[in-house]
């Protein structure tokens, strides 16, 4: 978006958001949800520090935004039903 200093805003203000930063590449383990065990309590959504456990609307099952999930495993640890397993990423 900026090519030269002439394109820059006079003040160092930032106005774009970070969605295009693919923090999912940091991940070494990934959460995998077993919908059969999921009770849709949304604890995983509530405790995700990366807003990567997506629930579109109430009643839906959560799904993982793998572009951004850093694989911290909090969702897996906090799931009251053990419905989220952390699997090792492979190349």
């Amino acid at each position: 978006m900026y090519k030269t200093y002439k394109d820059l805003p006079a003040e160092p203000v930032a106005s774009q958001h970070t969605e295009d930063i693919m923090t999912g590449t940091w991940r070494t383990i990934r959460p995998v949800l077993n919908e059969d065990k999921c009770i849709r309590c949304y604890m995983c959504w509530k405790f995700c520090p990366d807003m990567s456990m997506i629930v579109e609307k109430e009643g839906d099952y959560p799904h993982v935004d793998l572009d951004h999930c850093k694989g911290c495993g909090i969702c897996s640890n906090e799931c009251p039903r053990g419905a989220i397993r952390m699997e090792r990423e492979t190349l």
Partner: protein
Amino acid sequence: MIEMMNANYAAARAAKLARVDVTAVYPITPQTSISEKLAEMVQKGEMDAKFMMMESEHSAMSALIGASYVGARTFTATSSHGLALMHEMLMWAVGARRPIVMPVAARTIGGPWNIWGEHHDVITERDTGWLQIFCENNQEVLDTVLMAYRVAEDPEVMLPIMVIEDGFILSHTVDIVDVPEQEKVDRYLPPFKPEYPVDVKNPMRHGGLMMPDWWTEFRYLIYQSQEVARTKLLEAEKEFEAIFGRSYGGMMEYYKCDDADAVLVVAGSAAGTAKEVADRYRAEGKKVGVAKLRVFRPFPAEEVRRLADMTTTIGVFDRSYTYGDGGAMFNEVRSALQSTGSVMKDYVGGLGGRDVTVKFIEWIFDDLLRIAEAGKADRTVEWVGLKDGTGRW
């Protein structure tokens, strides 16, 4: 309207006339009466501003940066240790491009303690990116604060400005000041409208983390704005003169410099004394001149170079010492005059409240005229007025 007041009250009155929105202050001698006057004017309802009593000068500058981000016109004043404590935020104000205007009653920095005037506090802040304007008298302080807002808030500048008044010599000395009418000031100074205000309807991050890939470019923009400010300062003064009928010679005032055998470069109140001595010497047929260094940042290198066409011998009066090869002001002037063949010498004195008297300036002019005749300086730096056992001082 003509009134009698010291430079501190002149500065505070200028803040009121400029319709400053937010002030944040912390007391320090010899600036304190600026803060007191602001408090009084706000409390009496004469000035429609938020007045904040801070817990330090560091916090005062910080609060103004916050207020300025929102789009408030901001004002504070300080001196000495207060300015030194602000140092970090002075630089933040520049990087964040906040057009804060701040009179500084220039003073020593300890230790040992000394509350009196000199330029060491402001000179050591010359590298922060603030524009710095030295004033000769109380009228110039009031007028310069108004001009400063006009330049600082210009979208092409957006940099803070220090308006420098000599501690006690101006800050506490009553003089005649012509206080302009509010409606004229309103005509001169439009409201502050920043391009990127803090606004919940248009959220942005102001001053966040920046990587090496663009840092240089943003520093370059500050450099560019400093360069543009040269023109803006001249334009602001021209417009000021058109409305108020007063002007101060732009970046550098040449007083009897044409055809001079020697010229003394001097900033601040001592310029008035130097002009007085120049008048006397001219009357005696001694051809001396005074170059009043009014704007120190951006440094008027072009204006200084013009001196080389007027004279061969140039002295610089440093009312501070920065422990280099000569004082800071001397080195900047010498650097601008490189390869012009000018013969130069640095005069250090007037420190810690010691008066710069007619006798003091006479001593410098006599020395400069000797140098002009010899065609070379006897040394680089002379500390003038030292009790050296010769009985002269």
